[in-house]
């Protein structure tokens, strides 16, 4: 079974259906992949400036909008002021 049990309590990166990236601690999920994220941040990528982090707080993402959910297992220095895309 492909479930998210292993990811609970870990820092998780969620790609949403509309292409946004939200990072937070996964607190829970259900069978429709509704997700609860604690201390969520949205990462906004842009061509002109570095990655911007917008704090969102406690977030519940409806399963319909979840595309991809993945554990962030390392601090990645790529996410700095220099990354453009």
């Amino acid at each position, binding site marked *: *079974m*492909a*479930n*998210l049990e292993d*990811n609970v309590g870990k820092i998780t*990166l969620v*790609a949403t*259906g*509309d*292409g946004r*990236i939200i990072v937070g601690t996964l607190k829970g999920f259900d069978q429709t*992949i509704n997700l609860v994220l604690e201390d969520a941040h949205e*990462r906004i*990528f842009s061509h002109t400036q570095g990655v911007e982090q917008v704090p969102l707080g406690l977030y519940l993402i409806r*399963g*319909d909008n*979840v*595309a*991809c*959910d*993945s*554990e*962030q*297992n*390392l*601090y*990645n220095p*790529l*996410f700095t002021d220099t*990354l453009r*895309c």
Partner: protein
Amino acid sequence: MVDHSFFLRMLFYSFFKSLVGKDVIVELKNDLSICGTLHSVDQFLNIKLTDISVSDSDKYPHMLSVKNCFIRGSVVRYCHIPAEEVDPALLMDATRKEAQQNKQSAGA
């Protein structure tokens, strides 16, 4: 009323289970293409991949810090699978059998 999509999904669930451990490329509806090793799949065709890389990482660097991921079945557009792992004749046979069964149970 027989739910045909349910039977078909169970068939492809079994099919994907036979591909566990193989390298696949999953193309999402948001145009993201993720390449990785198929770790597991469930009845909704949600997919877990390990050791992933994003095919167009210049355009989508968002996932560079990620090694494993869970993909919701409903957002998958295509799955690219290794040709040598698939037996089309077997798959066609299975689908026909499934259709036959559905027809019978619908008639009963």
